[in-house]
């Protein structure tokens, strides 16, 4: 690289980027800055535009409107092979006719790096992803988790400044996925480059990201750290998509909050783990909200139990309690009991009612 990296400009900048496929607005006027060196996640349900955004950064797709800057350089019209980013594909996209070593060394091969240096760097990369000595195997001889690591090594060997990961753990089983989450994060800290990670798994997003953007219908709903997004969801969609949330109907909310009916109608969400089950006559102290109801459903989940409580005011709230002293028998016997729900007012997330 001839000019020194511009530290003042963000790694990635989206300015009013839109991508239409015919009538469908896959990405709708997105503006976003991603800081150099951060682990940034694009989170959203399928069809929310997150993958299209990633593909536009890689250069596989191009914006209908707006511009994309990579480290201060506009790339909107550049082909993938002229961008300093590499991608780990959802299906890994390993070349089936090449060995693992040839796959990992592909980027160096097209750059005409001398063979001896290439082989050394391939071995270093395989070491980094903890697959030493597998260079001679064919991809078809590897397990899913190993292929995933080969894809990662292949994408990192060119020393890109940004690594794009398109749901790379989607095909792995839960145990392996959790292990790879930790490992990916460790590799990111070791190589110190920007990782942009696409996933629909909110737990994955919360575990790994420095910051994340929540997508819905081609638009960004919220950008922030995992804690911010989880604790202060900006929209009803974010509250529902990131974690589980109870929506409290405006009419019920008014009673619970003791609002005079002349006020602007308001609604809020409350996380199930913030609510406590209490005896029907339990006292309500200052700063607490309460609602009375009857337990309609109990789901015993091992680590915790989920209760669905039908409120006397109408509607229902889900409550999650850790199984501190509860046994499965005890939890299941709670069905049909009258309870008072208590929670701190501070945990209420006020949501703008959009009509």
């Amino acid at each position, binding site marked *: 690289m001839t000019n020194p990296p511009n530290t003042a400009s963000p790694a990635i900048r989206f300015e009013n980027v839109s991508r239409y496929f015919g009538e469908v607005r896959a990405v709708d006027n997105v503006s976003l800055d991603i800081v150099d060196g951060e682990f940034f996640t694009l989170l959203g349900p399928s069809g929310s535009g997150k993958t299209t955004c990633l593909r536009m950064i*890689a250069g596989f797709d191009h914006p209908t409107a707006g511009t994309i800057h990579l480290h201060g350089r506009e790339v909107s019209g550049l082909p*993938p*092979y002229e961008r300093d980013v*590499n991608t780990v594909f959802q*299906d890994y*996209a*390993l070349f089936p006719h090449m060995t693992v070593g040839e796959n990992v060394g*592909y980027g160096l091969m*097209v750059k005409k790096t001398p063979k001896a240096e290439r082989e050394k760097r391939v071995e270093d990369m395989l070491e980094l992803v903890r697959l030493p000595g597998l260079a001679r195997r064919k991809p078809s001889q590897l397990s899913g988790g190993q292929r995933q690591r080969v894809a990662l090594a292949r*994408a990192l060997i060119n020393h890109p400044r940004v690594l794009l990961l398109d749901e790379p753990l989607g095909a792995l089983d839960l145990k392996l996925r959790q292990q790879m989450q930790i490992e990916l994060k460790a590799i990111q800290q070791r190589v110190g480059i920007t990782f942009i990670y696409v996933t629909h798994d909110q737990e994955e997003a919360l575990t790994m990201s420095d910051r994340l953007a929540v997508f819905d219908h081609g638009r960004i709903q919220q950008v922030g750290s995992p804690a911010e997004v989880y604790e202060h969801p900006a929209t009803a969609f974010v509250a529902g998509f990131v974690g589980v949330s109870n929506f409290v109907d405006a009419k019920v909310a008014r009673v619970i909050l003791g609002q005079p009916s002349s006020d602007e109608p308001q609604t809020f969400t409350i996380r199930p783990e913030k609510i406590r089950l209490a005896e029907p006559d339990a006292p309500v102290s200052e700063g607490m909200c309460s609602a009375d109801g009857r337990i309609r459903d109990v789901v015993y989940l091992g680590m915790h139990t989920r209760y669905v409580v039908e409120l006397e005011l109408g509607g229902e709230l889900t409550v999650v309690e850790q199984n501190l002293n509860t046994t499965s028998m005890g939890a299941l016997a709670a069905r049909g009991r009258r309870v008072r729900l208590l929670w701190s007012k501070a945990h209420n997330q006020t949501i703008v009612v959009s009509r």
Partner: protein
Amino acid sequence: MAPRSSASPWQRLSSFIYLRPWLLLALLLGPPMLWMVVVYLGSLFALLLQSFFSLDDFTGRVVREFTLRTYASLFTAANFDIFWRTTAMAAAVTLAAAILAFPLAYFMARYASPQAKAALYLAVVMPLWSSYLIRVYAWRLILAKEGVLSWFLDLVGLGGVLEWVLRLPEIGGNSLSFSPIGMFLVFLYVWLPYMIIPIQTALERVPRSLLEASSDLGARPGETFRHVILPLAFPGVVAGSIFTFSLTLGDYIIPQVIGNSSFFIGMAVYSHQGTSGNVPLAAAFTVVPIAIMAVYLVMAKRLGAFDAL
């Protein structure tokens, strides 16, 4: 559950077969195996057997005794001319077919909309619906001295080019329909579909993400073609070339209708078994294309044609 005795005979037959997988296998494979082994391989074996007999020159009858004399009589200069001419034609047709077929197959596999793909597919195989003989004779008219092709070339002012081509030694001739180059064009026409379809099938099996990965890692389109597309499509090219190569090697009609009546392997087989009644020599001639194909496949394997299968 219903008692067993109430099951209909059909249900009992189904269960009987279901519980005996070997029986199902035998029922499925029996008829095709019978056909393959008895009719197909049997006739091939009979052919090979014939080639080890010889013809008595005086009586004109086949002597049913093992001998290599018939094979020895293959090795004459005139026969080598025939082998060389046929193999060169087959190789030229195969190469030209691959070069012509690849772009079309690539377009069909990667860019064409489903409707366009169906239309192209139809266009490619439609000629196979009409008689091969009719099409070959039609080409004789197209290529004739007064034919539509030379008329068209004169019209656009390329008549001189045609004359120059026809004056070339070895492949030229009186007119296109009486020259090896005309024969080459007709071979190319009749076998091209057999090259397009396998290549298209092979290209269709290459996921788009592989091409994206290649360009993502810094490869320009030409490099992606060389390192990813071509190696993965190569088994399709080889499959197609087996058709074009072997069909050209064995054909005896096109060299009779088009060209300067110099002999090709298929014509030699035809005349030895027909006019001269020398079935052993005809059989020995037939072994030649089989041997050439075997060499061809070994070479294709060396080139890594089957690595990506």
